[in-house]
């Protein structure tokens, strides 16, 4: 028995030969065409995000979930597009909010669309029941598997996603998953800058699952609006125009609000600020 930890779990070299590192490069591509050289690591395409979307915010309230994401597509510091929709509707009543690389967002969009089509085969002809079996927890689990497997191949989809909807029992479902395959649930979730600035504000009202029943729909919407305002103040890649979806647990309906503008901003006090140190005019 070989007690060396680096040899645990492996069949012995003496019987089966040394580990074949080419397993990491296994493919159906013509082995005669030697494209890659030998290396200790699998083929990696870890990229840099190019066109990106910023924060996604979500909070549970007494009768469901409110989720929001702005319409900005940034290209580094260039605010290139102002009409990007980052809240995706999947199935009957699931919303997936995606931040990070936009080309990978569109790849996820294609993947989830294929999933919806597959689910639709088992449904009736009534449009309202198509893909009715596809719930938020299924979408989240599927997305998590895909994201984790991509990261394990060192070829991630460079995104952070929030899945909001209803589970098999019809209860509110809110869970996060990102480019590393990290997944967790909480009554308040946010990605990017939102994780630093919005989460504390959201947690002031909903600190744990027990506080969810005390938050009304109107208050939840106002809270998300206030967070989007703070993010517009402080996130240099944000836009003051965003989309917000309100999901209700009682009837499993989704209210989708587009082109919502940030309001009630305070800028007037800038008048009193002059210079940076010594008094000047």
């Amino acid at each position, binding site marked *: 028995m070989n007690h060396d930890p680096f040899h645990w779990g492996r069949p012995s070299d003496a019987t089966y030969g040394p580990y074949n590192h080419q397993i990491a490069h296994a493919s159906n591509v013509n082995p005669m065409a030697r494209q890659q050289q030998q290396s200790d690591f699998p083929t990696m395409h870890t990229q840099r995000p190019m066109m990106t979307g910023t924060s996604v915010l979500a909070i549970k309230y007494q009768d469901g979930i409110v989720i929001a994401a702005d319409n900005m597509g940034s290209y580094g510091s260039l*605010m290139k597009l102002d009409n990007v929709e980052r809240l995706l509707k999947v199935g009957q009543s699931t919303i997936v909010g995606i931040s990070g690389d936009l080309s990978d967002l569109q790849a996820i969009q294609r993947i989830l669309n294929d999933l919806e089509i597959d689910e639709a085969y088992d449904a009736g002809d009534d449009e309202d029941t198509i893909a009715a079996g596809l719930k938020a927890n299924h979408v989240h689990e599927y997305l998590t598997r895909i994201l984790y497997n991509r990261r394990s191949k060192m070829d991630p989809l460079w995104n952070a996603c929030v899945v909001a909807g209803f589970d098999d029992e019809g209860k509110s479902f809110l869970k996060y998953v990102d480019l*590393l395959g990290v997944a967790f649930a909480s009554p308040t979730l946010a990605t990017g800058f939102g994780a630093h600035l919005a989460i504390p504000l959201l947690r002031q009202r909903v600190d744990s699952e027990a506080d969810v029943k005390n938050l009304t729909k109107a208050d939840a919407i106002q809270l998300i609006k206030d967070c989007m305002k703070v993010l517009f103040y402080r996130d*240099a890649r944000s836009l003051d125009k965003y989309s917000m979806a309100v999901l209700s647990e009682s009837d499993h309906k989704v209210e989708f609000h587009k082109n919502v503008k940030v309001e009630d901003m305070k800028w007037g006090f800038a008048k009193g600020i002059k210079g940076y140190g010594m008094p000047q005019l």
Partner: protein
Amino acid sequence: MDAINVDINHLKKGEVSLGTSIMAVTFKDGVILGADSRTTTGTYIANRVTDKLTQIQDKIWCCRSGSAADTQAVADIVKYHLQMYKANNNGKSPSTKIAASIFQELCYNNKDNLSAGIICAGYDEKNGGEVYTIPLGGSLHQHEYAISGSGSVFIYGYCKKNYKPNMTKDETVNFIKTSLSQAIKWDGSSGGVIRMIVLTKSGIERLLFLPDEYVNA
């Protein structure tokens, strides 16, 4: 075993913020300086109501872009030199050219240690309004109008096409407001309010335009 570290929260490769949109424009009665009010550290907006227009002398002001610390330090030194000039010359005010020249000397001789892009603009009776731009290397250039900062790259075309010499005060204010509005729209490192300083024979006027006022300019 060598690990591969992927910091997903890090700044993207090559992303450096000279975050600002500043400009100064001469017109019939003098000169107007304009600037946005956003200071960023990476993508966090550290100050959304910054005053980037700094007084060096009564009617000599400068627009600061680049490192906030570097430009503040340089502006303070230039202010000191001009105060000494005034004291040693019987209260005679220095010309805009002298102020710009001192800026240049500091920025050029310390070019390795500074990250400062400055537009120096002023008014005097004899020369009217003058604009001098001192970019990163420490060279000095006089123009009828100058634009600088990361947001300025988006408005080179617009400004070239829309600048006219000897405009009125209102025309110039609108020119600056519209130009900076576009710079702010496209540049993530610029934003907030638009501040302006008008320097003419009559005096010094401070103007402020909030987002609601300039977003559709």
